[in-house]
């Protein structure tokens, strides 16, 4: 098992407390095949319990709730390998709740469900 030390920057903002958003840097041990989502979960479990992000993931590319902006692009983070220096922000196009948590059931989203597959 190869592990290596990496740093990622994560968007932090609690609209009820903070005047403006900031980025927080976390250092973690990247294991082989670690996804961005696994890294975020690792940070929550081991480093910082105040980090907010969705409480549900399917891990199968079906739910879309692991969507975050990684290096300026919306991605499904359960399938993206984490890399040193990555910048992780909340998915754009949805109302922000706090940190990486956004409102995925916001009104405009409902249209998407209305379409046939």
């Amino acid at each position, binding site marked *: *098992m190869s592990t290596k030390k990496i740093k990622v920057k994560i968007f932090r903002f*609690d*609209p*009820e*407390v903070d005047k403006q958003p900031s980025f927080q840097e976390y250092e973690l041990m990247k*294991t*082989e*095949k*670690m*996804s961005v*989502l*696994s890294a975020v*979960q690792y940070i*929550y*479990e081991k480093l910082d*319990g*105040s980090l*907010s*992000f*969705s*409480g*549900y*993931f*399917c*891990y*199968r*590319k*079906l*739910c*879309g*709730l692991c969507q975050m902006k990684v290096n300026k692009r919306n991605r499904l983070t*359960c*399938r993206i*390998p984490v890399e040193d220096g990555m910048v992780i922000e909340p998915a754009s196009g949805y109302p922000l*709740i*706090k*940190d990486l*948590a956004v*409102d*995925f*059931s916001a009104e405009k*989203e*409902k249209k998407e*469900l*209305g379409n*046939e*597959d």
Partner: protein
Amino acid sequence: MKSTQEIKTDVLVIGGGAAGCWAALTASLRGVDVTLINKYPLGKSGTTIVGMITYNAVMGELGVHPEDSPDIYFQDLVKEGALLGDQDLMEIFVRRGRETVLQLEKMGVRWDKVGDKFDARRLPGMSYPRGCFSDHRTGLFIQRALVREIQKRSNIRVLERKVTKLLTKDGQIVGAVGLHIHDGSFLKVMAKSVVIATGGAGRLFKITSMPEDARGDGYSLAYEAGAKLIDMEFHLFFPATLVYPETLRGLVVPRGTTVPLGARILNGRRERFMHKYYPEAELTTRDKASISIFKEIKSGAVTPHGGVYMDVSSVENLLEKYPTSFKDFKDAGMNLPDEWLEIAPGLHFTLGGVQINGFCEASLPGLYAAGEAAGNMHGANRIGGSALPECSVFGQIAGENAAIRTQFIQPLEPDRKEVQEERERLRSLLDAGKNGHIRPVKIMRTLQELMYDKVGVLRTGNSLRGAITEIRELKKKTKDMKIHSSERYNNEWIDAIDIQNMLHLGEIAAQCALAREESRGAHYREDFPQQNDRSWKKHSLSWKEGGDIRIAYHPVTVTRPEEG
């Protein structure tokens, strides 16, 4: 805490998977006011969407096996459930699945067909292939179709909340309260009927194929309200779920179908071992495969991530034959077909649940349950492909009867005190959390480990007694939880609420499993390896009384004594 929102409704449905959606839709057809509450975004969470393929139904002339019949399905269910399933529920189930397939087709689910006949797959335990499917994502398509229908109905209100408590008055259910995870605001719902459709409790265990939110909320809500749970010692494990990479942990690996095509299972020393436990080796049944793999893991011959290997390199056209699973693994960085998979048994289905009758009524007036949240249909084991149609059939029945009840009762105003106390309980977790020392997620991981090791695939009197002692120690630790104080999307707060419930569910499972001194279906006691019908062909009931877990037994409902 912020404001309290108050709403009144006729039927409150908790849970937005297939069972909950069907309950809401069916109730709404009777013209009553319906509120559907789901913890996370509706249609994008829950367990239904990850229900991959099969949906069992006897399709008669519309299917590829017209020789199949409800009677044969019934016999299969009785047998697979090791005589513990209630046959009155099975009678309903085997007859009504077909209609739900057709209803879903009208709603836009495109079932796979051979010509104009519904195609079907055969899974172990089926006398005929009867697993209908829609591509490889049946659950997802069903979920989406149901959500589209719900959005068309003006008398269904959809809310995203976490229900934390059912409200009772004079021995009946009168509503529920919950938390808005987004902003920490509080919701009080006054309802004439409440349907629990919250799925299973896979997350009680370290390895599970269920998603993050399957923490058994509904069992805890019912238990705390005083309703009876049934057969809570029965937990079905799937032998081959991935343990690595992290992000794929819990995904089911097809074993039954790939082994005949050349897949092999090896231990951490890269030796085959399955023959040591059962002569059929890799080809053995699901429960025996789980036991073999679990024993090998216990022996210490493990892979770097604590499982055993599965080598699928000699399966021809692997990626084409299994487009969902293996392609998905490749997608996540696995070098397939050559890289060996690391697998272990994972919790797949919670067989027990809220005790219901044929009207889906629980033991408390006003309370209904359906789908995996309900407990007594399958019995001690479950045929693959029976979970999704269970959600449809019993979701409909629960919704219909919950709506009918509203015609006969006057709504009762919940006690202000009960609502206020729950609000304070939630808030006090945050207040006390500032000075606490142990993170809820840490207690949760400890519980998941010990449940997997001691209350999982393999149980003994000693392992179960040990589990109960450890769980009681963990319960004490919940008085010293460290939680940060924000009310906005605070996962630590949610973990703190859930772990308290999960510890009770863990103890209930361990106590029921300890009492049941036999092996039956998914419950395997190494110290009592035989099925003992004379003493144990009966349900266990568990409920809360005076703050403690009570256990009693209840006969299995038999409609066809000749089936055993």
